[in-house]
Structures are given as structure tokens and as C-alpha cells.
């Protein structure tokens, strides 16, 4: 098993004919992802790595049965793209695009909830379940099939951690990049609940960072509802208040969102914390 995605995901890529679209359709196909369609308005009829391109998502859904969308369009067009996918009946939307206005994200995240759809991102690397599928831009080479679930607010930091896990022989059930923006569709809590239900997942790794209270909320949730062992790493322990540390969501504002508060909350919930991102793998071996 896996969470949120499996072999039944038939993927349409929105923004298929751009540089990113072409490259990542190739990478996903190589990973084994069922990429069935691309959408770029005005480019209908073209093909990318043999995948047919349509002008609109509803056409792609009708012709190919696509049920999942990967959004790679530029930020000013992202809201339109997500609304289009949801209206076409898509039930899993992964939004990679960064720098999307927060108010746009608030609208499409809520619209996804209305449609009972899973929305991952925005500003995330996507989701991968080794041996099954990869929907996003995560590097395929770092993964290994296994039993550790990973949920993260970061990109490369996740690759680093996943790579370290794989090198130590601990494969992953699913790795989900939640996104570095303040408003995201899928949270640590959603991922934790899904991993708790997933028979294949034996331990969960959370990669958090400064800003907001997602880690504190997750810690409360773990105490009440999660029985599997949880490990965590928090980035930004030395970040000064008021500076946005690269991610739009990574900011200590009005005294809220400090690493200290997150670490404290996780300790209370008996979550084991790593000092360095590469330490996580050792922790997981010791405790699971």
C-alpha cells in the first residue's frame, strides 16, 4: 500500500509542453508513472514523449480517463489551472508551482475540499511511492521500496533525508512533499492519518521548518491519534525573526513559528528529533 497515490493514478500534466513539462514527463515515465495526457491550451494534437497533448483538461479526461493532475504552469495561471482540473472531475491535484499569490492558494485549496479532492502543494516537489508511481519533480534515483513514510515541507532537504534512508537500506512506502507556502492543501496531520491507516508504513519521518504552527498541530495530533513511531527534523533553528528564509512560509512572525516551539512540541509528543538531516536514518534504525 501507499498513501494518497498508487498504481491507479492516471496523470495529466498541466503545462506539458514547457521545458519543465517535457523534462519531467520523461522522468516520470521512466519511474513507471502512468502519464496519460498533457494539457497546454493551443498545443492540442502535439505529443510529448509519445503522450498526447490536449487543449483542455476535460478533453484529456474524456479521451484518456485521467484522474490525477500535475500542475506545472507559471504562478499567474495556477489558480485557473487548478479550478479547471477540479471542474473536470480530477480527484488528486499536485501543484508544483511556486510564488503563487496566497489568496489564490486559499481559494483553490478550499475548492478542492468542496470537491473532496486531495490537493498537494503548492510550492512542493510532489509525491512518490517507490515501485508504484511518482507525481512531481522528485529525483527518481534516490528512492527504494520500503516501510518508512516521509512527509516534508521542503524539497532538496527531503531528497537528502530520503537518500540517507535508502543508503542505510530503509526504503520508503510513500514520500510526500507538502510544500513551503503558508497555505497548503495537505498538512502533516493529513499525512499522519494516512500513514497510520497504511499497513505498509511502519514509521513516519516528518521534515518541518520554521513558520506557522503546522508542527505544533501535528505534535498534538500524534499524542491523540498516532500509534506508529514518528521521527522529525526541523530546519531553521538559527533563523532570525522577520526574515523569510527562502520559502514563503518559512518566517517567524510576531513571535510565532520558532524552531524552539516546534522542537518542544515534538518532544512532548515523544517524537525523536534529529540534529542533522543525515542523522534521521540512524534514529530510525535505532528505534524502529
Amino acid at each position, binding site marked *: 500500500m501507499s498513501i494518497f497515490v498508487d498504481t491507479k493514478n492516471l496523470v495529466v500534466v498541466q503545462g506539458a509542453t514547457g521545458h519543465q513539462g517535457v523534462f519531467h514527463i520523461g522522468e516520470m515515465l521512466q519511474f513507471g508513472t502512468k502519464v496519460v495526457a498533457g494539457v497546454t491550451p493551443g498545443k492540442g494534437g502535439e505529443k510529448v514523449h509519445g503522450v498526447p497533448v490536449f487543449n483542455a483538461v476535460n478533453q484529456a479526461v474524456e479521451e484518456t480517463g485521467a484522474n490525477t493532475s500535475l500542475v506545472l504552469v507559471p504562478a499567474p495561471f495556477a489558480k485557473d489551472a487548478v479550478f479547471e482540473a477540479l471542474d473536470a472531475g480530477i480527484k488528486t491535484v499536485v501543484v508544483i508551482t511556486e510564488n503563487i499569490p496566497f489568496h489564490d492558494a486559499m481559494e483553490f485549496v478550499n*475548492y478542492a475540499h468542496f470537491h473532496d479532492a486531495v490537493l498537494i502543494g503548492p510550492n512542493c516537489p510532489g509525491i512518490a511511492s517507490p515501485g508504484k508511481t511518482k507525481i512531481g519533480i522528485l529525483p527518481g534515483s534516490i528512492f527504494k521500496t520500503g516501510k518508512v513514510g516521509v512527509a516534508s515541507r521542503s524539497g*532538496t532537504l527531503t531528497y537528502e533525508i530520503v537518500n540517507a534512508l535508502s543508503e542505510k537500506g530503509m526504503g520508503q512506502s510513500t514520500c510526500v512533499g507538502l510544500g513551503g507556502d*503558508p497555505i497548503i492543501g495537505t498538512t502533516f496531520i493529513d499525512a499522519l492519518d494516512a500513514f497510520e491507516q497504511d499497513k505498509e508504513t511502519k514509521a513516519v519521518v516528518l521534515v518541518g521548518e520554521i513558520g506557522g504552527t503546522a508542527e505544533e498541530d501535528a505534535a498534538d495530533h500524534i499524542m491523540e491519534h498516532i500509534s506508529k513511531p514518528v521521527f522529525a527534523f526541523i530546519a531553521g533553528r538559527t533563523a532570525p525573526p522577520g526574515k523569510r528564509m527562502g520559502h514563503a512560509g518559512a518566517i517567524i512572525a510576531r513571535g510565532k513559528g520558532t524552531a524552539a516551539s516546534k522542537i518542544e512540541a515534538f518532544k512532548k509528543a515523544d517524537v525523536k528529533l534529529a540534529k542533522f538531516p543525515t542523522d534521521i536514518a540512524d534514529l530510525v534504525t535505532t528505534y524502529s
Partner: protein
Amino acid sequence: MKLLEYRGKELFSQYGIPVPKGRLITAERDFSELQFPFVLKAQVPIGGRGKAGGIKTANNLQEAKNHFNTIMGMDIRGFTVKKVLAEEHVDVKKELYASLMLDRTQRQSLLMLSGKGGMDIESVPDNEIYKVWIHPFTGIQPFHLRDAIAQLQLEKEEGKALLNVIYQMYKMFREYDCELVEINPLILTSAGVVMALDSKVIINDDARYRHKDIVPEQEELTTLEKEAREKSIAFIQLEGNIGVIANGAGLTMATLDALTHFKGNGGVFLDLGGTDDPEKVKQAFELMKKAKPKVIFLNLFGGITKCDTVAKGVKAVITKEGIDCPVITRIKGMNEDAAKEILKDAGLITAGTLEDAAKKSSAMAGGV
């Protein structure tokens, strides 16, 4: 982007939210349209200006000129005052608080109202703040506020005036892509007008492209941060002396943390993002050199980005232009062996693990 008080109030006026009669005072010191007494207020993007002496009342022209001369050019917590707003005095009957922000957890807009205006909202007890979450698809509706208005014990007309101000505030919050609209204090005048005495407005930077009428003025960026922005490189200046180049925001933050662990101090935070474009790598290194760090720590994880491509870019800059500080590199991921060879060849120090590299960098920069 934080707007200065006067710019926020211009937006309020545009939305029909009453503000005191005022004008921006320049070097000509033209106070002609204003009635005494009035208040001179330093325009800086930071709180605490009253305590710093940046707000003064003038009862006559001489006082006005003197106060203007004192406030203009004053340093308030690192910001030089370049603009002064003069506003006519208003009679305050009651001070309220109102704000709208994005709630990250609820993923809705959060309206906060309180009868305790004029003080830092962080110091107002929770049971005296009325909070209501507004879904983006309903927008603000009368039911959202019935309870709050009742609790504030206002006259009927005052309640209506307050409702109108909050509706307009919400409209502005959504239309201008605000992260925050805060009015503190929001006052009731003896004439029954609800008026914004101050403004705190933050507009989401990612939405600036659709608000061309909002022009940034007092930048909170350093010169190098500005140059980086023009070149679309994520670059943040901090206090320390170690320059960190990494790819991805999370990894960069984790690298700074590792340095601190070994008593090192990150001074510059440069995020290469997902690029291995040699031209971008070159620009990044040039920027880093200008920041004059004592040590440069390059920490790279190659996933989609190929390590050897980045290494080639680094080698090209160093062989061509030289570098006058030690560069410690730690490379992991796609094509790491080839990358290590290239960097060694360029005379750089390669470290095995993140810990090892962080320890070496900190030691060389004068830490432990």
C-alpha cells in the same frame, strides 16, 4: 511588502474607510491646509515609533517646523525617516482594534475585533478578542459580526458605521492580496464616525505583479540583496561570517543550523534552487564574493540538479577570477564522484559529510 502608514491610509480612503485629514510633509514644510493642533508622524515600516520620539503634536507653526526638523532624518530602530505625515487632531470617544489576516491552519481569512484598541494586540487577553473565520467563497456576511457588535456595546448608528468599515476592510484585504490589514486604533469619534487612526498593511509579494499602483519605497533589503533580486537569486544577508551556498531553502536552513551547532555563524544565505545553469552558478559565486565572507561553504544535494554540472560552473568562476577565501564543499547525490574530482582539481576542500564540512567551515571562520 509593508506599506507605510500614509500609503495604507490612501488605500483606506480609496475604499471609503474614514481617516483623519492629513498630508505628507516634504522639505517645503507646507502645512497650509491643516488646522492646529495636528500630529506629526514619522513614516517607517516598523512599530514603536511613538516611544522613539517619532510622533509629536504641534499647536502652532513654529512647533510644527521644529518637530518636522527633529523627526525628518531620525533613525528609528535602523530605519531613517524619509517621510513625515501630518494629521489633524481628532476627539477619541472609544478605541477599538480590527485586523484581517490569512490563517495558515484554517486556510481562511481571520478577522479579529476588540474593544481594547490602542495597545499591542499580543498583550490583550484572548477573551477580549473576538475572532471570526471567513471562508473565501462566502465572503464577509452580516451573521459573522452580529455577536461582536453586540459585545462591543455600541450605539445603533455606531454599529452600522463599524460594520461598513469592516466590510470595506475585507474588500480591500481580498482585492489587494493583503497578508495583513490592521487598524489599531480604530476609533469612534465624538461625532459618531468610525475612523482609522493608524494603518498596518502588508501586501503579498507574490501578488505584486497585479497591483502596479503599489510602488515599493523604503526597501528592507540590503544593497546586495537588491542585486540578487534583480538576478532572481535567493540571497539573504545575516550577521555571521560564513557564506552558505546550497540548493533549496530547506537544505540551506539546515546548513546554517549545522554551522551554529559547531559555533560557526552563517553570514549569507544563498539558495541556488533547482538550477545547475553554469551562468547562474557564476553569478551566485560573484555575489557571494562581494559579501566578503571569511569562508564559503558549498553544500549541494544533486537530485534533478547534476552535481558535476554545478561543480563545472564553480570551477570556471574560480579559475577565471580567483577567490581569496577558503571554499569548503560537500557534495552528495547525482554524479557526486565526478563533481568531487572537478572541485579538488580547482583547489577546493572537499568534505565527506555535512557534519564534517560544517565543523571545518566553523573552525576556519574562527569558531571552535
